[in-house]
């Protein structure tokens, strides 16, 4: 028996009843029913997206008059919709190329800033000894639950009117217009991201072995050196998963952009433009389908290629305020 080949071992396990209880439940539910149910769920979860995707390549008349499933009997494809929606000259066409760039300009700094600040803060909250540290952490943690609706009105007035108390101006208005409003959006996204970002990174950084820090300190490294050359390299996976979270959050956000970027073509991101198209041109499916896909494609690529990090991040901490 000591010479059991891998093949035999494989057969042996295949014949055994499933070990996990999930497997047993599945068996109980009669594996055929289970398969059918999971296929139905999988279909409901994919067919709507697929329909949109397919429609975005169909000629305008076809989209408006026949269902996308008729494509299989009458296959006609065109890139017209994308051409229209991205580069069309008329104001009704979408001009999404412009808004696509806005989305990129909004997203990159809105991902970089909170991660850097949160990493610094999370390190201090885990490894620097000072009084009130735990209370500070609990405070930041608790901020996760404050709905960002609570901050919108005052923060907007802070940008447009500054802060004054009893007639004395403490901080002047920022007075940003046109492209300058990007700064406003970056600022808002950074603030709103921090509680969750600190929480997630604290989970990772506080788990690092204390001997490592001690050893570095004995070698004469200060906190700054330890942070840069010991902590940062070790938490790269955590930084990656946080970056993906924040990227998806910012790229897909509508509320913050609506309020701090406004609807203008200078700053508004794709989501704002799409929502506008859906509101005013709800029947123009050739534009909506192609437009929706333009906004979906980037997060989808990021998501599919970095799914591993995303899932790891989800499993570590999963309350976004």
């Amino acid at each position, binding site marked *: 028996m000591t010479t059991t080949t891998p093949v035999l071992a494989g057969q042996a396990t295949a014949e055994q009843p499933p070990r*996990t*209880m999930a*497997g*047993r*439940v*599945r068996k*109980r539910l009669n594996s055929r029913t*289970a398969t059918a*149910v*999971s296929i139905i*769920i*999988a279909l*409901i*979860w994919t067919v*709507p*997206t697929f*329909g949109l995707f397919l*429609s975005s390549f169909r000629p305008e008349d076809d989209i*408006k008059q*026949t*269902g*996308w499933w008729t494509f299989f009997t009458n296959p006609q494809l065109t890139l017209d919709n994308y051409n229209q929606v991205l580069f069309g000259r008329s104001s009704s066409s979408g001009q999404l190329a*412009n808004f696509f760039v806005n989305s990129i*300009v909004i997203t*990159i*700094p809105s991902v970089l800033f909170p991660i850097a600040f*949160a990493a*610094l803060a999370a390190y*201090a909250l885990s490894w*620097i000894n000072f009084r009130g540290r735990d209370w500070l952490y609990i405070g*930041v943690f608790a901020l996760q*639950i404050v*709905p960002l*609706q*609570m901050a919108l*009105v*005052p923060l907007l007035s802070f940008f447009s009117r500054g802060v004054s108390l009893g007639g004395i101006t403490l901080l002047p208005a920022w007075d940003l217009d046109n*492209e300058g409003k990007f*700064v406003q959006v*970056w*600022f808002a996204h950074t*603030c*709103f991201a*921090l509680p969750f970002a600190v929480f997630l990174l604290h989970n990772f950084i506080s788990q690092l072995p204390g001997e490592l820090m001690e050893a570095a300190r004995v070698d004469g490294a*200060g906190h*700054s*050196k330890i942070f840069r050359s010991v902590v940062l390299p070790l938490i790269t996976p955590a930084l990656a998963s946080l970056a993906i979270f924040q990227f998806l959050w910012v790229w897909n956000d*509508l509320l913050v952009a609506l309020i701090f970027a406004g609807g203008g073509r*200078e700053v508004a991101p794709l989501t704002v433009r799409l929502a506008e198209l*859906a*509101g005013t041109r709800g029947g123009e499916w050739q534009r909506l389908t192609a*437009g*929706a896909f333009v*906004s*979906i494609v980037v997060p*989808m690529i990021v998501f*599919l290629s970095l*799914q591993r990090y995303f899932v790891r991040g989800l*499993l570590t901490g999963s*309350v976004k305020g």
Partner: protein
Amino acid sequence: MEFEDFALKLTMLLYGVIGFVVVVGGLLLLLDVVPNYFARRREAALVAASLGGGDAPVARRARKHREGLLGLAFLLPALLLLLIGLVIPAIRTIILSLFNGNGSAFVGLDNYGWIFQENDIVRVLLNTAGWVILVPLLATSVGLLYAVMVDRARFEAVAKSLIFLPMAISFVGAGIIWRFVYAYRGEGDQIGLLNWLWVSVGGTPQQWLNIDRPPLNTFLLIVVMVWIQAGFAMVILSAAIKAIPSDIVEAARLDGVTPWQMFWRVTLPSIRPALIVVVVTITIGTMKIFDIVRTMTNGNFDTNVVALEMYNQAFRYQEAGHGSALAVVLFVLVIPIVIFQIRNLRRQREG
């Protein structure tokens, strides 16, 4: 897109990235240089002290003090931003909710009275309640069912990705995807999947989202949220199921429990903590639902919810008082859930 626009945007991006490098790099440099400077002075002081007879306790207290300062320096950007962007605005919102629309007169609790008297707003609260009850329930059930079914199945990874993918799609994008499913045409072929199915089983085409029976259209919007959140539930629950120790399963099996009992008596209790995390997270997210409703019906046909009404009051009708009061209501509704969550975590840690 004109080239000038494009160049201007890229310049802004460049400013942003340069700003990032300067701020973060400068901060790290400062954190490096300043403590070093003090360390050198401390060494000098220590040398002087040891020559003069030794005064160690003072040096130690000074060191603790310096640690505090350094900690503050690490924390400074985050704390400052949280204060300016979140804490102070939240307090101001509470104050604003006690004032009238333009903030000129104190009105006490009138804005809260308005929420519960205005029929439209009561409707909004009821709709939100419907969302908060149904979305976590349905999304978690579907996620759990699917996690159990595909566990150890042949194409598990692919099958999971399919359900998980909607998480990458924006609520606006999902709203458009589903509006297309619900699309309606008065005559000729239907282009919406739902009406096509409906007609093929013998119904007449319906305008699903503005149909006169309000609960149904809200339910159809809820479906979209469930569609997005089920993947999240599935991933967390699937990981929890895989983490159940196999000896528990073996023991239960030796006791001869049926798989059905196994599910209810072993699986469910074992994944209870994960289940709670999932339900709480989805509940909090659902409470603040905004984008889906705004994209699909804009709150018309009795589908409005609190977060959308808050946005409309504060930013469309310029009624900052009403808007702030609604924001505070959202906040108050979240608090019991969070207390529940914290007590739960504490019990786990003790148990």
